[in-house]
């Protein structure tokens, strides 16, 4: 039928876009392209793959955007064509659908009654006139647009249900357009970004996921606390960041974000994405003084603060704290500026003993790694403060509500399209010598089994109703 309609239209461009063959080709094409996108490493993952390509291949891949297929212009173009195809198909089919929606078949058609099972034609007791009235009353209650045609001995009725279901597929198609619109709104007016915040730290910018360019949030967010809970078997149970949102130094909101429970502030959503450790500003040092009166002291030192050496008038400071220095674990840089003599600076490892075991003599060979470089002191690093940082994913997507609306509409549209049908019923009430004959017939736009069931149900209902009315009259 659609093929015929296509041929009628004079404009070849229109003819091209209104063909369902194009739809099927596009659906399969999109499927194939999507398959390619799952086989070729995309975006961040593509680096290693790209390195093994020849220059020519690499040029082809880059020119076709094959490392970011789903965001490539031509991929969007395909979706655009599909949307256009959908709109033009819908417009093209509208007159036909409208005709089926508004059609009013004559009540006295005979054709539907041919080949109906016997049980749908039955005799009832009662005078023809009253039976007609009773049946019509029942029928009008259950069906819409009931029309009647009466002659001397035959009374015809026709009615229908669910004629709006012809528009079911429009709901589905509209829902797809709404979802596409939601995606477009999201990509124009929204953003995706990420940021790491150290416990106690705060940011007012984040980095865009796609370009790493900074983006202003319009407010400040502080991470007050990050915590991770574990199950007994050691697998993680919950990650949680307690966040404070501030503007101009004023606290506006306190929220926490967990996996599956993002925090939302001023239209921007914060998701718990990752976490890690960074060293803080404090460390604990054990200092052994091997002078005339040997002493051992343990002190806590803050980075960059001049501290008095035990048993001396000289000062030292922790100039740097590294989480993992030279791949040998945490270390601090000690810098001593004595009153007389040269400045001395050297690194002290937390894992000094193990390093000494692994590379005997290493720390004594290099003065920069020797914890006893400033005589008669020996520095031992007990531990360094570590702090968690939380990795937050940040998104703003004003198109989401459109997408959800589209999803709702799509599911509703499916129900209308697949599970509901337009059913027409014809009833013929004939005066016969032995009584009154009621015959039923019907047709449905889909689900032929359903209409048979409905007809036999209606037949039984009418028999009962007429019989009851008859008893009441008697």
């Amino acid at each position, binding site marked *: 039928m659609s093929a015929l309609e296509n041929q009628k239209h004079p404009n070849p461009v229109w003819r091209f876009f209104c063909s369902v063959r194009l739809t099927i080709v596009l659906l399969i094409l999109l499927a194939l392209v999507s398959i390619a996108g799952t086989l070729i490493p995309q975006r961040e993952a593509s680096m290693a793959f790209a390195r093994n390509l020849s220059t020519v291949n690499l040029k082809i891949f880059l020119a076709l955007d094959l490392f970011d297929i789903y965001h490539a212009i031509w991929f969007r173009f395909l979706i655009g064509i599909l949307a256009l195809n959908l709109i033009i198909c819908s417009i093209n089919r509208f007159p036909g659908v409208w005709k089926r929606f508004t059609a009013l078949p004559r009540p006295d058609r005979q054709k539907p009654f041919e080949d109906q099972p016997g049980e749908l034609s039955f005799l009832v007791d009662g005078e023809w006139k009253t039976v007609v009235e009773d049946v019509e009353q029942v029928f009008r209650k259950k069906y819409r647009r009931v029309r009647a045609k009466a002659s001397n001995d035959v009374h015809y009725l026709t009615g229908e249900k669910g004629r709006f279901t012809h528009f079911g597929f429009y709901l589905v198609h509209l829902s797809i357009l709404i979802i596409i619109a939601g995606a477009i709104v999201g990509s124009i007016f929204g953003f995706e970004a990420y940021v790491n915040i150290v416990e106690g730290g705060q940011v007012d910018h984040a980095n865009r996921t796609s370009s790493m360019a900074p983006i202003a949030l319009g407010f400040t967010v502080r991470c007050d606390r990050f915590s991770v809970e574990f199950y007994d078997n050691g697998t*993680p149970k919950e990650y949680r960041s307690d966040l404070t949102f501030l503007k101009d130094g004023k606290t506006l909101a306190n929220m926490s974000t967990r996996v*599956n429970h993002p925090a939302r502030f001023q239209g921007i959503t914060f998701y718990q994405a990752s976490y890690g450790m960074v060293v803080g500003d404090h460390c604990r040092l054990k200092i052994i003084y091997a002078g005339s009166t040997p002493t051992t002291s343990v002190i806590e030192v803050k980075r960059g603060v001049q501290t008095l050496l035990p048993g001396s008038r000289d000062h030292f400071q922790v100039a740097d704290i590294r989480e993992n220095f030279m791949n040998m674990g945490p270390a601090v840089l000690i810098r001593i500026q004595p009153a007389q003599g040269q400045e001395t600076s050297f690194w002290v490892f937390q894992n000094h003993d193990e390093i000494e075991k692994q590379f005997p003599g290493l720390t004594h060979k290099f003065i920069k790694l020797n914890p006893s470089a400033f005589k008669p002191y020996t520095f031992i690093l007990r531990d360094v403060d570590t702090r968690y940082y939380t990795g937050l994913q940040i998104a703003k997507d004003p198109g989401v509500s459109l997408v959800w609306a589209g999803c709702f509409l799509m599911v509703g549209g499916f129900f209308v399209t697949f599970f509901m049908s337009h059913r027409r019923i014809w009833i013929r009430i004939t005066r016969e010598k032995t009584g009154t004959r009621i015959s039923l017939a019907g047709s449905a736009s889909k689900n032929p089994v359903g209409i048979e069931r409905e007809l036999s149900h209606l037949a039984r209902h009418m028999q009962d109703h007429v019989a009851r009315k008859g008893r009441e009259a008697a």
Partner: protein
Amino acid sequence: MNSIILSYITFVYFGAFFFYLLMMVMRKEIFGKIATTICVLGLAGHIFAVVLRWVESYKLGIGHAPFSNLYESLIFFSFTIILLYLIVEWRTKNRSLGVFVTPLAFLAMAYASFSPNINSRIQPLVPALKSNWLITHVITCFFGYAAFGLSFALSAMYLLKRLDHNGGSRFFLRLIPDKGILDDLNYQMVVIGFLMLTLGIITGSVWAHSAWGSYWSWDPKETWSLITWLIYAAVLHSRLVRGWRGRKIAILCMIGFSCVLFTYFGVNYLAGLHSYAKS
């Protein structure tokens, strides 16, 4: 305990398959009745074991619905196939589909129970899975998969039935219903599967929106579910609008089901966000 019961259920479903086959070969309805009885009993045991697993997880203090890893999903997949099949058998009063469907169920069970790569222990939920959407997402997806599985079996039956040119000369093909009935039933399965897959994708993206920060991130599993959706959308359009019937639809449905299988198993070989479904 529950996993031991479930490994026995594998053999029960194999028994059901055996009797369905016997019915087809010997053309004796009694074997079909035995097969159906075995199937129903297997399903009852299956439900019991899944509920038991659920209860056991709470006793371990890590209570969650048993839908959290590959083992549990295979068990649930097999359950949905048998349940959906029994409903279809009851509605159509025809048992021949059983020969083609029970192998899917028992293979899924056997893979879950006897593959050395699959861990049947109850494990605590990782933070990403701790969501109310887990149950809805898994149920809708797997009923979709099961309906597509039945559609695959019906398509296979259709293509076999086409070999039956001279009215049932071959012993096996006679009990398979007419091609028209198969085609109709196949269409119904595709509709159910398509609706469920759509709901599965929607619930999945609502969940992803709150867990991963985006309702669609082109993760391989997401992408493959979309590919599957596109294929079945093509099936429905070619049938409803272009009027394709029979062989072409059957072949498309088989392609569709291979996409379902890839969505389910294949993507585990691709890197992605759905990694908890791997083991």
